[in-house]
């Protein structure tokens, strides 16, 4: 028979066990799921940085996992969110920024995370071109920038020598570039020049360098009702120049996205406009003397070029119905570590991404990195050379990956002679605006 006494004893025993279990639980680390989109070897290097954080303290355990390339990671994160199971942190490429911002309650802005958890965070310490890209209209940090890059010129010094060009400097302007590719061609170089990321290098960066809008509403920062502006005579003339050069075999369109990348280290093309992140591969593979230089500009359009804009990716905090304050605190600690200048500087020197903090840039200078690696500071110089304007902050356009593809498609038709430069860009604007309007409608209210 159950007496009052045995009941009391067993209740006490139960309470004790529960108490012990609770204590054990409290000692357990808070786990943070972190999804990233960097393939090897960069993914491994990123996981090393995360390991550095895990080893630096004993409260938080960050579990990095590779979810495929950037678009695949984005897709995975969205699917997980829809299933109520989003990771704490996801790495998202720069062109997904507008989509993430429009996600509203799915995302916790970084400035909010840091203030809610009372974590020290120096938003001013970031390079303005980087901070601008990931800030809201009123200048608040929405995501944590980490691996940023920009586009620069790489050139083959041996080929320049052969063509009678000065190997100590790359052509600074487009007219000089055109003269250089003519000489390279005359000297028997089959592919004088090519470019990766056709939309990024030839339209997005071109607009920023010359302080020309890519879209209205301050490139989309002003609101969802932005419209593309790339059928402006300036862009049309540039595309026409590229088409003429392509026709004469002076420049080569080598495919979408980064398909052109291998052609430079292989010695096939003498000049390439590509992501600064290509540097690591060139160092490893190129069997010739090479140099890095800023992107060329049109002197007729601007006296001196503005800063370029960034690419790469940032870390976003995702919400989930079961998230606890302790988990947000853990994420904030992780972010505080990732934004340390020494972590930033080491990542920059190891990988070829640009330093994202001003102190990180300084630390790399102090370490003598740029004396040992001439030209490695070109991307950061180009990003910081002027104060940002509304045309050089970056792009904040919904479904930008789709718009990039549309521009690539229309360019490909133009390069084949199926349409003129004006028609190509008119079509791109028309189709791109449809994408923007759909995005606006789907994300309103």
């Amino acid at each position, binding site marked *: 028979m159950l007496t009052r006494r045995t009941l009391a004893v067993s209740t006490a025993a139960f309470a004790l066990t529960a108490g012990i279990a609770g204590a054990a639980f409290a000692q357990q680390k808070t786990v943070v799921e972190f999804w990233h989109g960097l393939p090897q070897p960069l993914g491994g290097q990123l996981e090393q940085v995360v390991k550095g954080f895990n080893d630096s303290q004993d409260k938080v355990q960050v579990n990095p996992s590779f979810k495929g390339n950037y*678009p695949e990671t984005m*897709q995975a994160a*969205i699917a997980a*969110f*829809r299933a109520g199971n989003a990771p704490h942190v996801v790495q998202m490429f720069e062109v997904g920024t507008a*989509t993430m911002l*429009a*996600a*509203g*309650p*799915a995302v916790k802005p970084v400035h909010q995370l840091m203030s809610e958890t009372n974590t020290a965070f120096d938003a001013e310490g970031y390079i303005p071109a980087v901070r601008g890209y990931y800030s809201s209209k009123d200048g608040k940090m929405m995501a944590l920038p980490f691996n940023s890059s920009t586009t620069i010129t790489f050139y083959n010094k041996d080929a320049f020598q052969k063509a009678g060009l000065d190997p100590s400097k790359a052509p600074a302007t487009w007219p000089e570039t055109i003269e250089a590719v003519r000489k390279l061609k005359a000297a028997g170089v089959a592919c004088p020049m090519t470019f990766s990321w056709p939309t990024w290098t030839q339209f997005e960066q071109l607009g920023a360098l010359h302080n020309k809008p890519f879209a209205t509403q301050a490139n989309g920062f002003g609101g969802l009702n932005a419209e593309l502006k790339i059928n402006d005579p300036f862009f049309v003339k540039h595309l026409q120049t590229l088409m003429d050069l392509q026709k004469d075999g002076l420049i080569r*369109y*080598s*495919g*979408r996205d980064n*398909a052109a990348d*291998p*052609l430079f280290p*292989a010695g*096939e093309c003498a000049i390439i406009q590509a992501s600064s992140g290509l540097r690591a591969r060139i160092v490893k593979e190129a069997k010739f003397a090479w140099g890095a230089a800023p992107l060329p500009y049109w002197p007729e359009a601007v006296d001196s070029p503005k800063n370029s804009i960034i690419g790469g990716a940032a870390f976003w905090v995702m919400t989930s119905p079961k998230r606890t304050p302790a988990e947000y605190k853990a994420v904030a600690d992780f972010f505080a570590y990732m934004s340390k200048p020494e972590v930033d500087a080491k990542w920059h020197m190891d990988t070829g991404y640009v330093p994202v903090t001003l102190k990180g840039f300084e630390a790399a200078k102090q370490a003598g990195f740029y004396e040992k690696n001439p030209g490695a500071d070109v991307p950061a110089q180009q990003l910081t050379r002027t104060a940002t304007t509304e045309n050089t902050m970056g792009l904040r356009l919904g*479904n930008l*990956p*789709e718009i990039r*593809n549309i521009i*690539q*498609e*229309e360019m*490909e*038709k133009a*390069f*084949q002679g*199926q349409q003129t430069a004006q028609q190509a860009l008119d079509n791109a604007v028309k*189709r791109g605006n449809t*994408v923007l309007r*759909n995005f606006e*409608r*789907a*994300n309103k*209210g």
Partner: protein
Amino acid sequence: MQRRVIFDNKALPYLLLVPQVAVTLIFFIWPAAQAIWQSVHLQDAFGLRAQFVWFENFEAVLTDPNYLDTLRITVIFCAAVTLLSLGAALLLAVLADSKIKGAGAYKTLLIWPYALAPAVAAVLWMFIFNPEIGVLGRALNNLGYAWDYRLNDTQALVMVVLAASWKQVSYNFIFFLAGLQAIPRSVLEAASIDGASASRRFWTIIFPLLSPTTFFLLVVNIVYAFFETFGTIHALTHGGPGKATETLIFRVYQDGVVNHDLGASSAQSVILMVIVIGLTAIQFRFVERKVHYS
């Protein structure tokens, strides 16, 4: 005498049906219903907001000149892949079926490509046809033929058709070979004795007797060209240059997964579903009548 299986328990037959019905519901009916639901809604990527928009997605898709162009390319692509892979497989099967030395080795080698994943096969084709790193691509350019599928619609289409067909030839070959071996030798010998030439024997005896196999393969190949060539196109051209190699299924992926436009993507899936239902009905109603089952 007719034999019937009799269940004492009235519930048992239904119980035995449950797994099959469950699989059909979960993996076929449920996703299809979802596609139909999404095709009449406008949604943001995260699924936070959805509004009912009637048939706007269908209207947008069907009035898009690029979509109609994609439809045209898909028809050309499917016809080319089906004809090429069936024709090549039949020719090879007839040759391998004749009495030649080392027939076993030929047969084995011809079946091999089927074991390759489409994406891997596409990468192999890239190593052949890429203008800079491809063996044949370089050779063509060195011979003075401007080969660059990245900036030439026709070349790109020819390349994906070749790659997609090559992959399917092995499959067709196996079935044709089996079909050929099932044709009674006595009939062929009788025809030979009557003085029928090889081509006459083929067209009047072999081809009609092969028609059930050919019909089956026709259906399978059209479905393959429609739905399973995604990996090949994705790895080789990404639908480019322009939209020269974009098929319907590639566009569904592009709009749904890359562009996060679930409404448009679902509307296209529904259209695709209707097309496939129609094609299958036509095939079974009209083409099958001409098929000669022995």
